[in-house]
């Protein structure tokens, strides 16, 4: 269809300082979207701003800092109801007739509860602890904890535990499939997880044969598409995760376009090369909680009850009841993904309007499981925009056993949150399968940056534990007295189970 007028102007403007530009053409070579072009006749750099996604690759690589990407300042007439973006989305849909797609987490200005919670510190009545002088323990075990102690005839305790995942810090890399992200991104995550004594998560795309060696630091995921699932895969990991839902797109499945299914992805996912990888919205063998129980036990049977099973769900309205059901389903760990969680591609409307904040979901679930006396049946892992060490501290104090991070990890790898993963043209070599782009992420650098990030967080976590007078992370778990809310209403405080600052 020919569209005589394009109503959509470029979202961004390339601002190039002609004084600074030395015509090295690095920007041109590095932009997979083809924004920059050198014109030899005029000895000038030109820009096709329609193609720009503001990924900042050119800005970061420009040796003379000649580039800035700015928001296009062209303004539609101001309207509090019809915001510019709302109108532009109408134009886009009128142009294409398609569902709007976007990536990464919900960018809308919903409340970020982490930012409205403050942490306590010891003063006078109780000493803070200096992490440089005293041991400060951040190790956690995820899994079911037995209710009763068994002893033999001599009174010795049977120390056999249900399978556990041991983490040196209560943070794991959340599920991102091979396919949605690159081989090098996976290698960075796997090697960093190994170095940090934590786990990364395969996502639903299977496990590349090269990465079986990192098995003890790997969580293997079983999602509705069952890509790459077979006995060796299940046995390779430290735990098995059943993905029921994802915070960025609760209630819908996934679609990896055939263009991203190259030879390697095809082999790993066990699907024909070039075919679309469709994950159905539900698991078609799980239409209710009793079906989930069957899958949990099928996976346990398949792995001789040696692997903890995680059930991952999106934070939705009645999450507490859902979690209670999962805790009684035989699952060892519940992972809850908040509505700000990221994705490689999601319908924009769903990403921005479905689900609830992880802070509220976590507080509600932890309380519900305790009220029912079944909190020991499961560990709780939360994700969906855990952005810093203080978010981790707050999550643990609200009741989480550990956090899942993905967006933070991608940022460490160079992601600039341009939110166009769905294009497959990630200039940072992360969300792409194009070999030319994939090689931009040197996994050695990637590993180092991830290890640095979490080493920094670990230091910060220890500092914050110390100032609360806590020297083991377990003593922080569910310790909501360490938190106070600011600017929250009674209901929000009630759900979070915390007092207001000053109380």
């Amino acid at each position: 269809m020919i569209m005589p007028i394009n109503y959509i102007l470029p979202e961004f403007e390339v601002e190039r300082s002609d004084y600074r530009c030395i015509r090295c053409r690095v920007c041109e070579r590095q932009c997979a979207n083809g924004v920059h072009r050198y014109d030899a006749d005029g000895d000038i750099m030109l820009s096709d701003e329609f193609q720009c996604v503001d990924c900042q690759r050119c800005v970061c690589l420009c040796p003379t800092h000649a580039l800035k990407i700015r928001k296009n300042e062209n303004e539609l007439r101001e309207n509090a109801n019809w915001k510019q973006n709302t109108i532009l989305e109408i134009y886009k849909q009128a142009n294409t007739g398609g569902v709007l797609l976007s990536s990464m987490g919900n960018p809308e200005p919903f409340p970020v509860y982490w930012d409205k919670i403050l942490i306590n510190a010891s003063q006078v009545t109780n000493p803070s602890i200096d992490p440089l002088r005293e041991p400060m323990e951040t190790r956690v075990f995820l899994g079911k904890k037995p209710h009763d102690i068994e002893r033999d005839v001599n009174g010795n305790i049977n120390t056999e535990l249900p399978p556990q995942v041991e983490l040196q810090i209560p943070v794991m890399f959340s599920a991102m499939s091979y396919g949605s992200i690159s081989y090098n991104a996976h290698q960075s995550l796997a090697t960093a997880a190994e170095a940090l004594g934590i786990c990364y998560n395969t996502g639903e795309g299977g496990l590349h044969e090269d990465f079986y060696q990192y098995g003890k630091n790997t969580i293997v995921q079983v999602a509705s598409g069952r890509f790459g699932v077979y006995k060796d895969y299940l046995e390779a990991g430290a735990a098995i995760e059943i993905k029921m839902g994802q915070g960025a797109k609760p209630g819908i499945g996934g679609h990896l376009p055939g263009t991203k299914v190259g030879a390697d992805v095809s082999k790993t996912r066990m699907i024909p090369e070039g075919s679309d990888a469709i994950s159905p919205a539900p698991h078609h063998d799980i239409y209710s909680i009793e079906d989930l129980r069957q899958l949990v036990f099928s996976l346990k049977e398949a792995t001789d009850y040696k692997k903890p099973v995680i059930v991952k769900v999106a934070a939705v309205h009645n999450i507490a009841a859902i979690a209670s059901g999962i805790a009684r389903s035989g699952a060892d760990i519940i992972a809850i993904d908040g509505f700000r969680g990221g994705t490689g591609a999601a319908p924009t409307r769903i990403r921005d309007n479905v689900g609830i904040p992880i802070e509220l979901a976590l507080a509600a679930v932890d309380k519900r499981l305790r009220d029912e006396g079944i909190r020991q049946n499961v560990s709780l892992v939360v994700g969906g925009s855990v952005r810093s060490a203080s978010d981790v501290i707050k999550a643990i104090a609200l009741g989480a056993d550990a956090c899942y991070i993905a967006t933070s990890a991608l940022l460490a790898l160079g992601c600039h949150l341009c939110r166009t993963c769905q294009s497959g043209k990630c200039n940072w070599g992360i969300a792409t399968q194009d070999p030319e782009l994939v090689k931009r992420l040197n996994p050695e650098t990637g590993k180092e940056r991830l290890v640095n990030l979490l080493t920094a967080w670990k230091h910060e976590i220890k500092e914050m534990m110390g100032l609360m007078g806590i020297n083991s992370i377990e003593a922080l778990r569910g310790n909501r007295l360490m938190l106070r809310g600011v600017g929250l209403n009674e209901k929000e405080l009630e759900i979070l189970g915390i007092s207001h600052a000053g109380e």
Partner: protein
Amino acid sequence: MKRVYVNEEWCLGCHLCEYNCAYSNSGIKDMVKALKGKTITPRIHVEDGGKIHYAVSCRHCEDPLCIKGCISGALTKDENGVVTIDHDKCVGCLTCMLLCPYGCITTDENETVLKCELCIKNGGIPACVQGCPNRAIIFEEAEE
């Protein structure tokens, strides 16, 4: 002795090393001032062949042909094994350029020879290595 090595796997063909090299050897403090409007004569250059990119610079050979062929004694090996050029002695005959099996010797508008000297005159760590965005160029001890 430490040498510059290039790992083709990670070379993106961005050519930043060439500009960093030219800037580093310009003796000028500002990159814009050093390179603006100039045709650069870097001592490292990136070979592009379709999807394959590879930066090439002097290998500092054990038995360098360039030194063997140098008619003026301008090219010598220093105590660390770095092949260096004395611009005062170079007569611009370009014999070395013809002899270098890697094509690593170039020339500038003064017509004396330019080659990689591992930035020993520019502070030690080669500029191409420092500026490589993907660690494709590394500065390491030679593997025996």
